[in-house]
């Protein structure tokens, strides 16, 4: 009886997936994900600044330049979005109201960091990319202090 009812309902109505959380396994958070993505943003920004257009009109060289430029921009934009996503996961899922009592500038820090992600996505600006890294370091420090640890901020590049 129940199975018939369920079967008819499942066939009639398309099932949708709903979540009780926004991300992966509960309790597994690490600002390293944001740091790696932000480092990629900084690296791509540096590469874009260093990239010079061909000095001649060779179509092959221009095609190669355009291809490299586009790839660098695509990676920079993708990683800037990834950085923002990872920061927001920490903000919305890990940090709790109690953390604000210890770190009253948490919201301000997150807000500025995510704004910098957007700025780095749309611009080729070394200063903003470096500033983003300083905010990532602040978030790293707040995160580990909130866990009673003092893990060093180590960069991959």
């Amino acid at each position, binding site marked *: 009886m129940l199975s018939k009812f*369920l079967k008819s*309902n499942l066939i009639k109505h398309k099932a949708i997936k709903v*979540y*009780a959380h926004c991300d992966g396994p*509960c309790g597994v958070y690490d600002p390293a994900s944001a740091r790696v993505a932000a480092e990629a943003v900084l690296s791509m920004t540096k590469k874009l600044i260093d990239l010079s257009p061909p000095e001649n009109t060779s179509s092959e060289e221009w095609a190669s330049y355009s291809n490299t430029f586009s790839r660098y921009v695509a990676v920079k934009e993708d990683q800037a979005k990834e950085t923002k996503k990872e920061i927001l996961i920490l903000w*919305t*899922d890990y940090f709790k109201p109690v953390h604000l009592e210890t770190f009253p500038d948490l919201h301000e820090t997150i807000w500025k960091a995510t704004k910098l992600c957007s700025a780095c996505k749309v611009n080729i600006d070394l200063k903003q990319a470096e500033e983003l890294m300083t905010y990532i370091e602040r978030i790293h420090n707040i995160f580990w202090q909130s866990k009673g640890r003092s893990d060093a901020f180590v960069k991959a590049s």
Partner: protein
Amino acid sequence: MEPSLIDGDIVFFRKYLKNKSTLKTGQIIIFKHPIDEIHLIKRVKTIKEFSVEVFGDNKKCSTDSDFFGFIQKSKVLGIVTTSISKKNFKTLSPFFNS
């Protein structure tokens, strides 16, 4: 939403209709995430004229109104009426395949 709902459970819901449905405190609702393109499932805590405050039963791990604030009623898709636990669904699954 543990212990009320566990990952993999199946829920049935009735559609939330803006002018016909009534939300009540304690109901479990399905709604669109205010930022991401996903649907969330949470319990109703407070109801205002145009918005709802929601919370997860597993408070320690929940992403809810504590973080994203009130949910606009227009974001609500449905009110959960019944749920089947993953374990019971597995027991019933042979019937679905027959």
